[in-house]
């Protein structure tokens, strides 16, 4: 089975020589992609497309540039999710910036923003020196000969969930090939009661709407979507802060429709599953509405969030007296921590380091959980898909 419809594309991809990571020509190409997208009026209908267009500018990407003594490893294959429209482009950036040729599986589902971006990418690639070495294929995973790909390519980026990762782990590949995997993770939101109580109304409204965005985007199914809301503070402080915060959240959800039919029915199903799983006592009667469903987690372990049916606007609330207490219970499956606390990101990272927690790879503000990055799941993707030259002193 050919990898893609055009057999020439296989050859071009596999024989194309890797180049230096952070190559100026490649960064310039991405600037042209960014410019073409932002100038296209149709793109403005798709916030995720506009976000990617700004992200892929060289000035944005260089934030992650650490050394120019790096070179690509060869040809990289990307197995990306079907349900997140532009995840494929983020994966492509990992492989392209690191200096490789790339074969990227694009969602089979129809997404207008995918069509738009592919039109631009393919047009610009055809006009460039990268024609043939960077390809996008739109086929279901069942029609792709993964075994053949794994035998011939030099690098693989396998997105979740655990099923995809486990399936690919079984496939024989070259001894020096690189495999980046993104298995199932879960994420949390962290909020300080004291910070909430002293916030002004405008800040409170802004943070509430950012939190709502985090728990509704992608129907809360993204690995970076917070499933639990963790409060920091004394019990009485937390009690008062909850009233204030959730009132602001309810105002947001009343103002806008966040869900569609499929996500509402899934939410109803999640509630039933929760009730049937003997955690019924934790459920508060909800009603048929748009609100974010709150589940008291006082009798649950934090890592239960990973296993419980929580999506389409449901969150378990936990309470901790202080930051280190919270950091001690973070397991390695926690990916993103979105936070609204006085200590800020640096304070959180410091607490995680001091405690020695295995969890949390990303610390962001409310509203930034789906922001793209070249470091994902704790993996520096550019480094992972390139090789670094160790040049000894004295070699001229």
């Amino acid at each position: 089975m050919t990898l893609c419809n055009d057999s020439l594309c296989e050859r071009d991809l596999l024989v194309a020589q890797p180049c230096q990571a952070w190559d100026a020509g490649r960064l310039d190409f991405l600037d042209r992609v960014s410019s073409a997208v932002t100038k296209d009026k149709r793109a403005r209908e798709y916030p995720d497309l506009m976000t990617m267009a700004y992200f892929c500018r060289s000035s944005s990407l260089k934030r992650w540039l650490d050394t120019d003594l790096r070179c690509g490893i060869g040809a990289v294959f990307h197995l990306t999710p079907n349900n997140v429209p532009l995840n494929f482009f983020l994966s492509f950036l990992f492989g392209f910036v690191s200096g490789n040729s790339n074969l990227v599986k694009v969602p089979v589902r129809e997404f207008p923003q995918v069509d738009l971006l592919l039109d631009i990418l393919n047009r610009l690639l055809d006009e460039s020196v990268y024609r043939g070495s960077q390809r996008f294929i739109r086929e279901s995973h069942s029609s792709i000969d993964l075994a053949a790909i794994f035998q011939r390519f030099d690098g693989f980026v396998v997105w979740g969930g655990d099923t995809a990762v486990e399936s690919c782990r079984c496939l024989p590949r070259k001894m020096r090939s690189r495999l980046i995997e993104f298995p199932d993770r879960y994420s949390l939101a962290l909020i300080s009661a004291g910070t909430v109580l002293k916030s002004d109304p405008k800040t409170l409204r802004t943070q509430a709407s950012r939190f709502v965005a985090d728990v509704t985007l992608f129907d809360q199914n993204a690995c970076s979507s917070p499933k639990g809301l963790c409060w920091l503070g004394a019990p009485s402080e937390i009690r008062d802060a909850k009233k204030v915060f959730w009132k602001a959240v309810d105002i947001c959800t009343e103002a806008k429709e966040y869900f569609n039919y499929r996500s509402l029915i899934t939410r109803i199903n999640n509630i039933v599953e929760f009730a049937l799983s003997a955690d019924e006592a934790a459920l508060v009667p909800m009603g048929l509405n748009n609100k974010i469903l709150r589940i008291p987690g006082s009798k649950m372990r934090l890592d239960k969030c990973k296993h419980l049916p929580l999506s389409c606007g449901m969150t378990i609330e936990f309470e901790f007296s202080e930051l280190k207490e919270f950091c001690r219970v973070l397991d390695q499956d926690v990916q993103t921590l979105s936070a609204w606390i006085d200590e800020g990101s640096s304070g959180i990272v410091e607490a995680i380091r001091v405690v020695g927690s295995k969890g949390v790879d990303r610390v962001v503000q409310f509203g930034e959980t789906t922001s793209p990055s070249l470091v994902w799941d704790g993996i520096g993707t550019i480094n992972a898909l390139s090789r670094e030259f160790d040049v000894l002193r004295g070699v001229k």
Partner: protein
Amino acid sequence: MDKFLLSINYLSRKHFEKNAVFRALANHVFCSVEANSLEEVPFVPISFFKRYQLSSVDPEDIHKVMHSSGTGGVKSKVFIDKRTAILQSKILRQIGSKIMGSGKSPMLVFDSLSTRVGAGGYGARSAAINGFRAFASKQFFMVDANGGIDVEGAREFLEASDSEDFIIFGFTFVIWEILEKLDQLAVKKPLSLASFRLVHGGGWKKLQHLGVSEVEFANKVKQWFPVASIVNYYGMIEQVGSIFFECQSGFYHESDFSRVIIRDPNTLTVRNDGEIGLLQLLSVVPESYPGHSILSEDLGMFQAGICSCGDKHKRFKVLGRYSSSELRGCSDAM
């Protein structure tokens, strides 16, 4: 309180007691089992019939298990006890007699005997053929045991009957397929000069995929049989006893045994007359399983006013299957 609502509340209480899924819905999603209006009655999303075993009776009391004819792999399961089966037949007879008349006529069934007996499982077609048997003095099956069309058998059946009034019955797409085969066999048309009433149901989805309109369907049937009237019925395997016949004005009507609510797909709030939404069907029949209030994935709308057909019950249209987007997320690379 309205008698229909009283019956529905009785069923809600019964299923609340006997079925854990319905109890979870009533407790946590709808916050009440008793309703003050039909709009407050807890409903079961139709997809739940594929996901859960929705039964409110002990296994030894199950008389029959019906299933949907879904092509997606997982099928709905519907658990019927004897009492529900008897109620279903009685109500079908009562509602159907307004359209089909109180007598019985010879019936040409556009399907096979094996479908009626549920050889491949007891699905919607089996249920329909058996249910409409109540209006048949005798039935003849167009499809023989080998899957072929028994044209001569049908002619003999029609000629041997001393009736002048026949019923053609079947699922819409099955009738179309059989008539297409008759075309290919170059059988002489029409098959008979007697008078026929066509009763069909099962939805238009498959014919829509083929690009066949309702008018084309009717014209094709009329090429083969002098059809005096065509009646389309609407129902679903998940709600036995709910059957709606299209009136001569082209509407379906609620009945004393079934009611309909229209809901906005994206908020699930109730819509007004003239507004399109998802059909929620309520029926007093399902006693053995929590199917008395089901949110379907069919679109429809009420139309205000008195229908020229004379039926005073509220009238509505069925507009086809709702096509919803898939759930979003990121863990489905494979």
